[in-house]
């Protein structure tokens, strides 16, 4: 089957699906670059994907092991094997739900390995050319905030791709890892202007956080599956770079769009 070139933020993946439904799902979920368009571009990683693996979803726990020059991530409904060079990966999935999570897992591992950036559990909205990230646990209101923010451009409603750019700050990219709101507008990116931790409330209040408080709130909102302490330490440093470059807030909000008055 013909390979696909898919683009996620600044990264190009050459994907070789073994099944037609996998190919269709990828083509519908990611920005696809055609061979001619990508001529001369070297893919960052080649990924083989097979189906018919594992069993139906049984929980989010992922078993991570380093063995024989590769790292293996294994969940009941998927596995990923990434070679130590981070140039080749092999994925096996049970269904489309497993494939989505496996791709998130793979991409998070890739960008952390290269200390490029983070995948943050959040929605992200653009206002006047600036990106605002709204983070929280499941049920905190990420999707609600995304819906209430329409018609502003939405970069993500579940997992925001954040690139750390040194002292200059952070950039948020359009994310293909969506929950329900599909509004892809290509691989656009915007400077990240604030990180808001969501607190549903009867009040509307925007409380600035100290860097230490913001750091504490941020670290457990990052999608990451630890494979060894050295790699995990990269998360700490990436979070620190994000906190150093971007202000953080507790955002107490009602279920209407009045919170935007507190932000912009």
């Amino acid at each position, binding site marked *: 089957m013909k390979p696909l070139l898919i683009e996620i933020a600044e990264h190009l993946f050459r994907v070789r699906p073994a099944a037609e439904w996998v190919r269709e799902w990828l083509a519908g979920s990611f920005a696809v670059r055609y061979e001619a368009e990508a001529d001369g571009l070297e893919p960052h990683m080649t990924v083989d994907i097979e189906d018919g693996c594992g069993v139906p979803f049984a929980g989010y726990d992922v078993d991570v092991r380093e063995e024989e020059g590769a790292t293996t991530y294994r969940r009941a409904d998927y596995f990923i094997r990434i070679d130590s060079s981070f140039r080749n990966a092999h994925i096996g999935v049970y269904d489309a739900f497993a494939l989505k999570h496996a791709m998130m897992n793979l991409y998070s591992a890739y960008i952390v390995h290269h200390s490029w950036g983070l995948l943050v559990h959040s929605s992200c909205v653009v206002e006047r050319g600036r990106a605002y990230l709204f983070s929280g646990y499941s049920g905190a209101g990420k999707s609600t905030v995304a819906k209430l923010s329409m018609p502003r451009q939405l970069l993500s409603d579940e997992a925001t791709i954040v690139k750390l750019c040194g002292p200059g700050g952070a950039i948020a990219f359009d994310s293909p890892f969506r929950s329900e709101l599909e509004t892809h507008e290509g691989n656009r990116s915007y400077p990240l202007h604030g990180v808001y931790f969501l607190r549903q409330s009867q009040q509307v209040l925007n409380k600035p956080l*100290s*860097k*230490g*408080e913001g*750091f*504490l709130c941020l*670290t*457990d909102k990052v999608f990451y599956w*630890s494979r060894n*302490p*050295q790699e*995990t*330490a990269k*998360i*700490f*440093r990436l979070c*620190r770079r994000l*906190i*150093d470059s971007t202000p953080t807030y507790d955002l107490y909000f009602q279920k209407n769009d009045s919170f935007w008055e507190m932000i912009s």
Partner: protein
Amino acid sequence: MITDAKVRYAWKEHVDLAELDGEVVLFDAETCRVTKLNELGGLIWFGLRDNEDVEGIINGIREQYDVDRETATNDCLRFIRQLQEIGLLEVLPAEA
């Protein structure tokens, strides 16, 4: 209980630290646990970072907070014990 005021400590190898505008945050890369220190904890951390022994750190607490030796000692030792219990800190071998 730690009783030797000349004991020195070091952070475990897998512990990373960040100073963020005067606040100290610890990260245990083995457990992914993040700990933010309060003001007293930060003061003790700066002492440990500067390789002070316990006696020197206690003196620093007394200067900063104007407390008696017993209070400063108890606070310091309790904090160090907590850090040891959660695997962040270890005792350095005695100097020859």
